[in-house]
């Protein structure tokens, strides 16, 4: 296994550090995913409401997220807020903020899309049966929306988990950064370490993302 560089994983505390790095990635992505799902549902519903002013605001929000690379957002939140307002936000907070900001917008748009596919008659029947608007959404529309949302949301979630590798740019040492550190530290002794270490990182991402994708298949079947 020397040639593939698997052995460097077991040197010193390397394996433990990789798992620590993985925890940083998971922590940032999971907190952001939870925030994005909750806020995304709200934003998505607001997007379907027919108020021109609200629409313009949300449209701008969505376009900002679409246009700006996540890396730029990270720099603006982490370094920009210090320059402009003098706030000293921690790197973790900045990362969670940016990922939630991004996730909420995309999730919101997915929710909006899913609500649009629900036939209008559902709204009208619900109102005719005496439900008010809030009840209509909570009891009738959202449960149907969620079922349609699952495959779309899973794509977003796994994408968010993988994009956490960008947080190294603001000094968060996550799993991919640890991998690079290990490869470089062993540059002379095992030049092929890159293969083994990146293969292991691939495996780590896989065991995080795979259960999520299995869960989505299960939920789709169960709620179908």
């Amino acid at each position: 296994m020397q040639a593939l560089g698997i052995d460097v994983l077991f040197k010193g505390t390397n394996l433990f550090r990789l798992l620590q790095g993985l925890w940083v990635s998971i922590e940032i992505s999971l907190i952001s995913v939870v925030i994005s799902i909750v806020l995304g549902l709200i934003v998505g519903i607001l997007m379907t409401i027919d108020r021109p002013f609200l629409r313009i605001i949300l449209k701008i929000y969505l376009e900002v997220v679409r246009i700006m690379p996540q890396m730029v957002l990270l720099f603006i939140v982490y370094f920009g807020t210090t320059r402009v307002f003098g706030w000293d936000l921690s790197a973790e907070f900045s990362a969670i903020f940016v990922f939630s900001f991004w996730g909420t917008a995309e999730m919101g748009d997915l929710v909006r899309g899913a609500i649009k596919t629900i036939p209008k008659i559902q709204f009208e029947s619900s109102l005719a049966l005496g439900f008010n608007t809030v009840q209509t959404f909570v009891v009738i529309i959202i449960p149907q929306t969620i079922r349609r949302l699952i495959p779309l949301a899973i794509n977003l979630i796994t994408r968010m988990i993988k994009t956490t590798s960008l947080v190294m740019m603001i000094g968060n040492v996550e799993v991919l950064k640890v991998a690079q550190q290990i490869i470089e530290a062993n540059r002379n002794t095992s030049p092929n370490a890159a293969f083994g270490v990146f293969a292991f990182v691939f495996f780590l991402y896989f065991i995080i993302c795979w259960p999520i994708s299995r869960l989505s298949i299960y939920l789709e079947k169960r709620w179908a």
Partner: protein
Amino acid sequence: MKKSLFKKVTSLLMATALLAVSLTACKTSNSTSKADDKVYRTVDEIKESGVINIGVFSDKSPFGYVDENGNYAGYDVYFANQIAKDLGVEVNFVSTEAANRIEYLQTGKVDIILANFTVTDERKEEVDFSLPYMNVSLGVVSPSNAVVESLDDLGKNDQVIVISGTTAETYLTKNYPNIKLQKYDSYAAAKTAFENKNGVAWANDNTEVIAFSLENEGYTVGIPSLGDADTIAPAVTKGNESLLNWLNEETVSLAAKNFFHEDYEATLKDTYGEDYEDTLVVESTSLTNN
């Protein structure tokens, strides 16, 4: 269909315009707020807090990297630890990337950057460099049986290998316009071409060619330093006179004890060997040589 596309395009343009407006707003407020409050910490403030934040590379062996026990190590880190010891404070290492080193200093998120930071005129506009502790220049490596010791000795048809976009390419094009260059896009391609004897010599950063000649048998660095030598120095936030002066004095007093040779022997010798110690190490002896 047409109408909705038109709508989309207009909303997109509107969003961009608004974004641009908000960004310019950011910029102007940025320049005004900069004047009245300082972002950096003075030596006294650092001592009072008991911790100094130093930005280093965590994946550039042997200058700044993390060893297998999770501790920072390398030439830059060795110096950083000494700085913290002499200030009497703990050191907090921040993992930086080449692209965010200046940003970290300008926002005061680190006190010092010690990340293989080459002194250039453009960078001097943005940050303050203290005295140098290392040299970098170009080097030329060639096969041991036909060592190129001076670029003037090259024959008419001899070609020199360079990597596109590097300082080696710029330097040779400007100063030796008659030498034929073979340009490759990546390190790996240049290395293969050189090993296949496509060119008589390979010009690159001297640290790179030295490491290459030591890792591969049958190659000698005929020209270990070519052209203007650049220096590597610690950098602090622009205007942080207190820390800058302290660092300058620290560097001079350490140089008097040959500290940087000791640092080289502890960290770089394994990669670059003994022969290049005096080529690479700078011991700044006077406060005014920057």
